[in-house]
C-alpha cells in the first residue's frame, strides 16, 4: 500500500517520523540513530556558542544535511520576544525559514503558553517563517494557530520527556478531524506502541527526542520507531474494525464434529 508523503508547506517528506538531536550518549550514536530512524527532518536548539571552550565538536558535523532537513526550535523561550528573537537567530544560523515554535508557560510541566504561542505564530508568519508550533492538545488553540498561519499543528501526547504516551486520544482525534494542516504529535512518546497509537489516531507524523535518545539502545529504539510510525500509519489507512463488547467467532459455527 503506497502512502502519500507528509507534506508541510509544500515540502514533501517520505518519512512521517521527526526526531530530535538532544540528550544522546554521544554524537556518533545520534548519527547512527538518525540513520536507523529513517527520519528526514531533525530538530535542533539555538544556543550561545561556548566562548571559553572551543574544543567541543560541532553538532552539525554529525548531521547528514544532504538527507536531513534541519528544524531549529525555540525551546526554553518563555515570552513572545524571546521566541521570535531565537527563531530569527535560528534562521540566520541555518539554511531555511522553518521553525518549531515553543513558547513555554510553566517550568515543571513545560506546557505551552498558548496565548503567547498564538501571538508569536502570527508574528513569525508575518516575518516569512514556516511555523510549526508545539502546543497542548486543545482543538480550540489548534484552530487559532491555524488561523494565525501555522503550517502544521503539533499537539503534545504528554509532557515533554515524560514518556507517558498519548494521554488524551480523543482530543487528538478531534484536532485531526478539524485541522486543515498536518497534525504532528510532538512530545510524550515513551516507546514504540505510543507512536503506533498516535499514528492510528490519524496523526500525520510524530516528533520525538527523549524516547529514542534516552533509550538504553538509542539506535535500536530509532529503528523500532521507524516501524511503529509506519505500522500505525498503515493501520490507520487500512481502517480498523469497530470495537464490540462481546465475542464474534472467527471460525465457522457450522460443521463442528460430534454435533
Amino acid at each position, binding site marked *: 500500500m503506497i502512502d502519500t508523503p507528509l507534506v508541510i508547506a509544500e515540502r514533501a517528506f517520505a518519512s512521517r517520523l521527526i526526531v530530535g*538531536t538532544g540528550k544522546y550518549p554521544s554524537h556518533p550514536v545520534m548519527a547512527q540513530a538518525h540513520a536507523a530512524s529513517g527520519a528526514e527532518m531533525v*530538530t535542533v536548539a539555538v*544556543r550561545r*556558542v561556548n*566562548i571559553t571552550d572551543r574544543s567541543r565538536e560541532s*553538532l*552539525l558535523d554529525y548531521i547528514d544535511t544532504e538527507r536531513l532537513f534541519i528544524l531549529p526550535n525555540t525551546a526554553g523561550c518563555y515570552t513572545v520576544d524571546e521566541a521570535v528573537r531565537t527563531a530569527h537567530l535560528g534562521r540566520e*544560523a541555518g539554511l531555511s525559514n522553518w521553525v518549531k515554535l515553543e513558547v513555554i508557560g510553566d517550568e515543571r510541566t513545560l506546557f505551552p503558553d498558548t496565548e503567547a504561542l498564538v501571538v508569536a505564530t502570527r508574528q513569525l508568519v508575518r516575518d516569512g517563517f514556516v511555523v510549526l508550533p508545539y502546543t497542548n492538545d486543545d482543538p480550540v488553540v489548534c484552530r487559532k494557530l491555524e488561523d494565525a498561519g501555522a503550517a502544521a499543528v503539533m499537539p503534545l501526547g504528554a509532557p515533554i520527556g515524560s514518556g507517558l504516551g498519548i494521554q488524551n486520544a480523543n482530543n487528538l482525534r478531534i484536532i485531526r478531524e478539524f485541522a486543515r494542516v498536518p497534525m504532528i504529535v510532538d512530545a510524550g512518546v515513551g516507546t514504540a506502541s505510543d507512536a503506533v497509537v498516535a499514528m492510528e489516531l490519524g496523526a500525520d507524523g510524530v516528533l520525538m527526542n527523549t524516547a529514542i535518545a534516552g533509550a538504553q539502545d538509542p539506535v535500536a529504539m530509532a529503528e523500532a520507531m521507524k516501524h511503529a510510525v509506519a505500522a500505525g500509519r498503515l493501520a490507520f489507512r487500512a481502517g480498523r474494525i469497530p470495537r464490540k463488547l462481546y465475542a464474534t467467532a472467527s471460525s465457522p459455527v457450522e460443521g463442528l464434529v460430534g454435533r
Partner: protein
Amino acid sequence: MAAQPAANQELTLTCLERAQYAGSSATSNRVLLITLNGEPYELEGPLSVTDLLAKLSIDPRRVAVEHNYEILKRHRFADTVVHEGDRIEIVNFVGGG
C-alpha cells in the same frame, strides 16, 4: 589607506572618534570592553565581526551573530566594526528536541 573601500573609512572614522575620547593615537590598537554572550569580554581593537570570529576560532558559516540586538546577515560580518561597549551574541545549533 585612501584607496580602501567604504568599510575601512568607517573603521578609520571610528578610530578617530575613539582617539578623541581616549586622547591617544588614531592608529594604535587599544583594548575594547564588550559584552560577549552576556559576559564582559576584553579584546584588542579595532576589529570587524569577521576578525572576532577568527580570533575565537568560530566558523562563520555555522553561527548567527546579533550585534546590539540586531541580527547581522552573514555578508555584513566583514564590514561591521566592533565598538567599545557593544553587545554581541554568537549562537549556534546544539542538540534539542
